[in-house]
């Protein structure tokens, strides 16, 4: 049984850790632990285990600085967002992203500004495609 296993998606706890790591850029176990919500009350060993598993899954890398390990994310938040949305679109929306967007626009109670932003985004994309 190999210890290095690539996984495509994060569990809830791992996502919480990755979010902190994306915010911090690079961080030690203690940094991530401090960045979590105070109500979390996570033991140092548990936090270290979660980061080690993230490393085994290939989401972070670590470098040793003195006695402590410093962790850095190997993929950006944007990349993971795209991967998650693609997965959601494939699994739940029959591989039709337009259905996903339609559901979002219908149900999410978007403000005028947000809708304008989406419209501008689509226009920009259409212009880029025509070039």
């Amino acid at each position, binding site marked *: 049984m190999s210890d290095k296993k690539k996984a495509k998606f994060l*569990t809830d706890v791992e996502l919480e850790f990755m979010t902190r790591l994306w915010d911090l850029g690079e961080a030690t176990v203690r940094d991530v632990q401090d960045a979590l919500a105070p109500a*979390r009350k996570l033991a140092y060993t548990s936090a270290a285990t979660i980061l*080690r*598993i993230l490393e085994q899954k290939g989401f972070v890398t670590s470098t040793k600085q003195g006695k402590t390990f410093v962790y850095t994310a190997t993929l950006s938040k944007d990349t993971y967002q795209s991967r998650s949305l693609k997965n959601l679109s494939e699994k739940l929306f029959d591989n039709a992203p337009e259905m996903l967007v339609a559901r979002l626009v219908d149900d999410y109670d978007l403000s005028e500004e947000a809708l304008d932003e989406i419209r501008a985004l689509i226009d920009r994309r259409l212009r880029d495609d025509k070039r």
Partner: protein
Amino acid sequence: MTSASTLLDAYIDVNVLLAFTCLVWAVFARLLGIAGLGHAVTAQLRLLRVVFLAVIVSPVFVALFSAAMQAGYVAPGRSVNLGDFIVAQYLQGRFEMNPAALERLLGLRGEVARALDGSAGTALLIVLCAGFVLFALRLAASVLHLRRILSDSHVWRRIGRVELRISDTVTVPFSTRSLSRRIVVLPSSMLAHDADLRIALGHELQHLRQGDVEWEIALGLIRPFLFWNPAFYLWKRQVEELRELSCDRQVIARRGYSVAAYCDCLLRVCHNGLRRPRLLEVEAPVVALVRTEDRFFGGRSVALLRRRMMTVIEGRAERHPTLVFAALTLPLLALTLAASVAIQKSGDWSQDRIMLSTIVNLERLQAKNGSVPSFGAPDY
């Protein structure tokens, strides 16, 4: 052919003995309750296991006993035979029954064996073989599934020959083993709950300490042979219940967890286990923190969880489990081994059996010829 018939006889004897010991255990457990030892779950668990082991090795004991008799180490009068015992009691007038019916009852095993000699026997053998293959395949499938769960999990720590693993695909902590290592698998979601993590780990390590995983594997391997025998399932169920009750008590006593936190942890894990479809659909050789069947046996899991929590809340300490175990083992083990010899086919025609046969023949004659006048009767 003789060896095949000997093996079949041994197989039937093990099944009959298991059913018998199950009945004896039901009475014994009630007596323990009356004697105020109902809470001695660790002693009861060890006792159940020893008796089960005695049942499984009983054919070897019977063979050794009969070899010792033939060699003259055991006097023939010391041997017990259930059939002979019943006939002796009958002839002494301890119970009333039609003699022909009693003879039929005593010869039932021979009758069944004769009936199964033909096509019915072949059909039964096919059914038994098919059942064995089915249950062996189920076991193989569950082992493969377990291997997949283990290979998808991540090593957390290695302490000697114990390996702690974290898995994203399970919701209930469990322990199992490979040939060289004992393994505890914990759900990754549990890492976010320190208290639950500590309790679950303590519980699973206690299972490893008690040898529960090895017993579970042994029962899993025996299951294809005894799949049709309800006594086996009753036995297994009783062992599982005592195992969990004993483990809960030991963990709380050793580690001093708060009873409320322990019960909360059991409830949370059970709740999480029911949220997702069960990962170990078929019974794998693992020992889990809680059972979460949601199909036919859901009621049983709930009842067991309730009993576990009640026992933990009661918090009654078990004093000197080894002493209680030693005191209880002797009578039950002696009874089991004596029964294994007693249920053997009677070798020779004893005086009592000849007497019973004579009574049956006389009754047949009487039925055929009408009443036979006896000396002193008016029409003699």
